[in-house]
């Protein structure tokens, strides 16, 4: 253990604690604004979860990740898939999605399981053939498909960057990957363009119908894309959330209104159902201002940049893949969540790590960071030269 702390990444650890503290305060503020008193104590639940998460963090950090991957990655992956099936069958329905199994969200846990599975399979040897690529796609597609069935597009989308990055850096059929990426980007732009053409002012109803027939979006997704393209069009309807989110963030100004004094939140202009979860950044940004936003970005930076740095110092492929995968997962959440709050990307339901109230996700992220810490501690030696012999 003594030697373990030599490579313990303190920056990553401290910034994680700082983020947990920040999140607890944000949840306190957002929860207090809600009419239902049950949410007033949500910050305590968050803190309690963080303590459990910390235990998991240390347990994983001081376990050699290689042994862990070897023994646990495959069973964890299989359990995750089973739970994803179970949630579709027995899950409880909240806000139009079937995401909850008893007290946790399998889709959140499965993100980490997929990353571990990919790291286990593609870390050590060069498995670059099309066959392996097909296996990788299958391994990713099954859980993602199940998640999309919930439906939880946000979770599926934030997993994509992590998975694609892992496959790319592991050199698994890069040509194919790039092709998929290119096709994906083209489709995304085509959809955006088509919706723009259909919804821009002065388009006849017939032509609109004609174009939208070809757009593979569900009605709520279409309306979110519409809000993204024309944010001012329907500020009391579909565009209400984005407008209130921006008013909330913008009216925070440079230094904010003070912790617990956010008006958009406390006067309930920010929709109550999302102010503690996907849009908690608005609550935070209104109360702490641009200064607070910058501090938050720095904290996230201090978390994920050392995460990627761990990949540099790690000596084996699995370690590098885990470090990059988990960091990218966190980054994707942070970036997309904040970007959607200010209208840079269409609104998708996904939490802001540490700040949003969500116990499963907090645990997942802390566990993932524990794995990176494990890579930082154990990954500097190769498998063939055990620590004790060094």
């Amino acid at each position, binding site marked *: 253990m003594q030697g373990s702390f030599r490579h313990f990444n303190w920056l990553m650890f401290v910034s994680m604690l700082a983020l947990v503290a920040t999140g607890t305060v944000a949840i306190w503020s957002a929860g207090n604004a809600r009419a239902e008193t049950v949410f007033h104590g949500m910050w305590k639940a968050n803190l309690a979860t963080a303590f459990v998460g910390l235990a998991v963090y240390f347990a994983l950090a001081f376990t050699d990740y290689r042994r862990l991957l070897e023994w646990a990655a495959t069973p964890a992956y299989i359990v995750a898939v089973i739970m994803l099936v179970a949630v579709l069958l027995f899950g409880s329905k909240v806000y139009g999605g079937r995401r909850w199994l008893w007290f946790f969200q399998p889709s959140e846990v499965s993100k980490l399981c997929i990353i571990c599975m990919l790291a286990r399979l593609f870390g050590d040897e060069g498995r670059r053939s099309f066959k392996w690529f097909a296996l990788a796609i299958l391994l990713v597609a099954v859980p993602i498909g199940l998640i999309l069935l919930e439906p939880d597009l946000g979770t599926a989308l934030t997993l994509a960057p992590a998975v694609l990055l892992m496959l790319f850096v592991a050199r698994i059929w890069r040509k194919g990957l790039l092709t998929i990426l290119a096709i994906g980007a083209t489709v995304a732009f085509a959809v955006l363009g088509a919706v723009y053409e259909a919804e821009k002012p002065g388009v006849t109803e017939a032509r609109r119908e004609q174009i939208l027939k070809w757009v593979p979006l569900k009605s709520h997704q279409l309306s979110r894309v519409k809000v993204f393209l024309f944010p001012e069009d329907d500020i009391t309807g579909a565009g209400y959330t984005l407008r209130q989110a921006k008013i909330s963030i913008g009216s925070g100004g440079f230094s904010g209104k003070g912790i617990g004094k956010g008006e958009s939140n406390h006067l309930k202009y920010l929709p109550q159902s999302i102010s503690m979860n996907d849009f908690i950044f608005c609550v935070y*940004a209104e109360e702490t201002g*641009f200064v607070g936003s910058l501090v938050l970005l720095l904290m996230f930076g201090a978390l994920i940049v050392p995460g990627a740095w761990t990949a540099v110092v790690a000596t084996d492929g699995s370690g590098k893949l885990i470090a990059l995968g988990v960091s990218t997962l966190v980054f994707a959440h942070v970036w997309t969540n904040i970007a959607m709050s200010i209208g840079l990307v269409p609104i998708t339901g996904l939490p802001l790590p540490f700040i949003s109230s969500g116990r499963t996700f907090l645990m997942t992220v802390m566990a993932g960071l524990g794995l990176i810490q494990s890579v930082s501690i154990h990954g500097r030696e190769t498998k063939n030269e055990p620590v004790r012999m060094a």
Partner: protein
Amino acid sequence: MKHDESIVSDLSCWATMAVFVLGLIVLAVHLKAVQVDDAADYNYEKNRQSVRRVQTAGPRGRILDRRGRVLADNRRSFSIVCNASAFRKRSWEATEAAISGAISNVAVVVGRASPLTDRAIRRHVRQSLAMPIVAWRDLNEVELARFSEHERLYPGFSILETEERSYPNGSLACHLVGYVGRDRARGEEGDERFNFREFELCGRSGLELYYNGFLRGVPGEKKLLVDARGFTERERLVSEARRGPDLMLTIDADIQRVAEAQLAGLRGACVAMDPRDGSVLAFASAPGYDPNEFVPVLSQEVYTRYLNDASKPLLNRASGGTYAPGSTFKPITALAGLQMGYPSESKYDCSGLYALGGLKLHCARHWGHGPIAIREALKVSCNTFFCNLGMDIGTNAVINAAHAFGLGAKTGIDFADDRSGIVPDDAWKRKTYNEKWYPGDLAQMSIGQGMLLVSPLQMAVVVGAIGTGYLVTPHLKAGEPAQQRPLPFSKRHLDVVREGMRMVVAGGSGKRGGEGVETEVCGKTGTAEYGTAANRRKNTWFVAYAPANAPRIAVSLIVEDGESGGGTAAPKVAEVLKRIFNAR
């Protein structure tokens, strides 16, 4: 170390790190745009949706008589208001039901049902949710005590202290002072600074109406912070509303009281005015009403009662009622004649009847006055003399003289109700009755009958002008500059008429008009007949000015359906003059 053999290159790791840093920088840049560059815009948007600006109402200024005695006052009033945010429910319907139910509960304590209907509550919730609902206005002492004792049991309800109008002298000068209603203040066109304007008292008639803008309290402002549904969270006073200025009148409450006492139980009006500057001292109309009955709200029941009263108590007869002037018009005909060159000593033989074709006009003295000159004719109010004079000088001469005295036009008094009356002519008659102007019409007009109509206020101005030689614009607000216009009649001619009018009081038809008055009075009686031949009725006038040589008071008084000007109206004027001129 097999470092270099790893399939994951350092480059990919560094590149990933770079993407992280770049991504965070992109966010920082956009956040700066939103939170720093556009912060003011978003703050404005935030305020626009969450801040309601309310214009608060200030207490109204009082109305005082010329010596500062209060005619219209404010008194403290207590209302029970209900704060809607204490009854927020998920749906509007449930909120309305909660408020309605709570009000019914409080009604048990107050001991009186709230006048608020469910519809009114509904409208309030949908339209002015942020504002408190006034559930009971103007509580009496018992109600106030009962509610105060139990106030803590009814969260969401509180006592609001406001001011209500009160008229300490009851019906005194009621038509003059007027009464108030309650209304939302109206902003200037396009003035959208305020989301809500509090109800405030506003004049509905009389001076309360005419000087509404003057008396009105200076509005204050408060800001309400409302939540997304429109319920008030907090409020902040921006500026306190202030009391409006007091309106001081030229009216003398004592003279007003005497004038009203003379008309008690009758229908009529009396105006007393200083003919030198036009300041009105008394402005009475009978019957009257008690404007306190209209506070805090004019109920339908009270309004209907007054409206259906045959004696029309709401009608302001002093300036809004018009009557045939009868013989009080004769001084005008006389002046017109003198101006046209009719000799003041020329006599006309009155036989008691003036016949013009089929029209027969009788003199008050059926057997005639005999040969009579102009002063004497005024003194005895000889009809035939003035019919003849009018026929002599022609329609235009009479009409011009009437116009010179301001008849047929508004007096210009600072009062909403300022009827111009009618000075008929050929064009007017053709337009109104589709008939041409007959000589008989002129004969009638010469003695103040026919279609001629004047208000008592106008006659006070006329009689004052005869006394002073110039016409004034009457006014009610103290301190207004006098507006005078000289009469187009020579002093010589005016003196002839003045002498005639002096004789009226000295020993003529209006001798009771100066009885007991400690100064010399000049006046003219008038008994204007109206109605059908079978039901002939008389409006009785007396107009006067005093003292004879230096007039400082002009009075006009009319009693509807009296006996005669000299018998009915003149003694009443004498009482008013006594109050002014006799030492007490």
